[in-house]
């Protein structure tokens, strides 16, 4: 018992320290990537204070952090004080608590003179409801946003909060449906087990159910409130969205929580669909491994997460923000049906896959992968033909039929 507690404490310290540092440096990375994409150079000056050593701007996060800590914290007179304080704490705690069940590697061999089981690289390795816990805790983010916007007593904040509430609640559904296929495949809600199942078969879930992957990734972008789904806080329309009235350390908690959400989304995509720590020919799939393989597995997982985070950053500057009705249409008219189709196809293959594969004479998994691609193509085609996201509700312009314009009664 004692050993479990100490182990968990050490993991928590490593995780929180690592996450906070990572979040700070990811902000720097995001600023520099954004600058490069806009043909600028980005913050490259701050290095060691009082010297001229620059270190490519690696001192910037420290400078930013110190600035946030020492900034005046304004609590406007018109806010609801209790909720105003509670909201950033709620969103921050929720964002961090998710990492209790997210594995950041596979296992470490039991050395350090400890006997017994190998050390699992999750804070709470024994939780059977892993994914449900993730969903439950990430739902708290909605509370942080809604409470913060409501407590701010400000129209713009409130608009941002309402948008956010609608968006987050809507996208929970496709997120869950995208996940459901994965859970069906691996037969477990534990994230370790989901990775292990992919490692054993060597067939990542993205290959088996690409449609589920698309649904999950798009929904994860929306859940992390990243462009092109960052309507809750679109600076151009809502000043700052739900955290307009926040400043100082409370604002920092919001911003860090937002960044941690993105990291969480990357972790989940990597674990659920991209095989977690597994890579063909590098990591193997055995339960108990020596030090080299254990370290390689951590490196592989973190590399995948890093690549996904970079994709998040590139996506931000590649596609414009959706209109709010388009956002809702995508959730309810595109992603939801896609998710259902995916679940049905996966369930069908789990039930009848072996028999069909035996009849055709191909491997079960190869057949599943091919079907997955076909299903992705067909569903995409159907949605493209139906085109549910484009709606033209602009007023009719009635023109004389001889004019050089659209015909009578046509929308222009």
């Amino acid at each position, binding site marked *: 018992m004692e050993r479990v507690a100490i182990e968990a404490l050490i993991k928590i310290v490593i995780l929180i320290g690592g996450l906070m540092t990572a979040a700070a440096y990811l902000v720097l990375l995001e600023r520099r*990537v954004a600058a*490069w*994409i*806009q*043909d*600028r*150079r980005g913050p490259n000056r701050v290095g060691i204070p009082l010297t001229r050593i620059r270190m490519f701007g690696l001192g910037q996060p420290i400078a930013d952090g110190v600035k946030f800590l020492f900034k005046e914290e304004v609590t406007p007179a018109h806010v609801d004080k209790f909720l105003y304080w509670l909201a950033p704490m709620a969103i921050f705690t929720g964002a961090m608590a998710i990492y209790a069940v997210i594995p950041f590697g596979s296992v470490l061999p039991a050395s350090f003179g400890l006997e017994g089981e190998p050390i699992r690289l999750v804070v709470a390795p024994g939780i059977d409801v892993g994914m449900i816990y993730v969903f439950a805790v990430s739902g708290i983010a909605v509370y942080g946003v809604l409470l913060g916007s409501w407590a701010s007593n400000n129209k713009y904040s409130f608009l941002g909060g309402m948008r956010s509430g609608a968006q987050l609640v809507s996208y929970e559904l496709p997120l869950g449906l995208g996940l459901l296929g994965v859970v069906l495949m691996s037969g477990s809600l534990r994230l370790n087990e989901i990775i292990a199942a992919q490692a054993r078969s060597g067939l990542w879930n993205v290959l088996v159910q690409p449609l589920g992957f698309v649904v999950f990734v798009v929904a994860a972008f929306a859940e992390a409130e990243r462009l092109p789904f960052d309507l809750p806080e679109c600076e151009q329309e809502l000043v700052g969205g739900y955290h307009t009235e926040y400043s100082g350390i409370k604002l920092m908690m919001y911003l860090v929580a937002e960044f941690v959400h993105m990291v969480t989304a990357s972790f989940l995509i990597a674990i659920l669909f991209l095989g977690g720590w597994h890579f063909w020919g590098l990591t193997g799939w055995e339960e108990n491994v020596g030090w080299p393989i254990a370290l390689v597995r951590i490196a592989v997982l973190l590399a995948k997460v890093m690549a996904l985070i970079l994709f998040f950053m*590139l996506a931000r*500057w*590649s*596609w414009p923000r959706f209109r709010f009705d388009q956002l809702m249409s995508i959730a309810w008219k595109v992603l939801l049906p896609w998710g259902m189709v995916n679940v049905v196809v996966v369930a069908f293959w789990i039930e009848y896959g072996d028999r069909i594969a035996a009849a055709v004479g191909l491997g079960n998994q190869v057949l599943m992968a091919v079907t997955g691609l076909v299903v992705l193509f067909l569903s*995409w*085609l159907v*949605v*493209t*033909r139906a*085109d549910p996201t*484009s709606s033209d509700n602009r007023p009719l*312009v*009635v*023109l*004389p039929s001889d*004019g*050089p*314009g*659209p015909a009578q009664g046509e929308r*222009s």
Partner: protein
Amino acid sequence: MKEADKGIAWVREPELGLAGKSYLLLFVEGLTTTFKHLLGPKQTVESPEQRHEIPDPLLYRGVHRLNRDERGRVKCVACFLCATACPAHCIDIVAAESPWSDRQKYPESFTIDELRCIYCGMCEEACPVDAIELTSLYDLVGKSREEMIFDKEKLLSIYDQTKDAEPMRTRRGDEG
């Protein structure tokens, strides 16, 4: 707006084809553009290590200078045309009788408030003897407002600083 107006050209939105509606083309197009810029050349000039390149220093309107004639005297004849032309009223001239025989007046003091100046170049246009000119110096800094009020000596020293890089633009003979 009158829809029937013949002068209005109505432009139809282009129909999105199947490829356009599928969002795949947009997806690829967006990423391609992003990558092109991610790896492309950067526009930032890393001041102060790098200097901004001014295409034509003779056309640039930066800090003023007071030109000297061939004998090293201030060229200005204190006619007040620049102070009159100045829309920001930043030029202050005190005229006095000239100690030299070839002109009647000369500026005893000539100050320009560089903080009030809007760098429009009207003083340069107005000057009949081409005594005042705008140089291509653009990084003008000071620690106080008083420091930014340039007197005659300062303006003449700017001429000494810049005369080699930017020759005087005399167009009217040697009247000065």
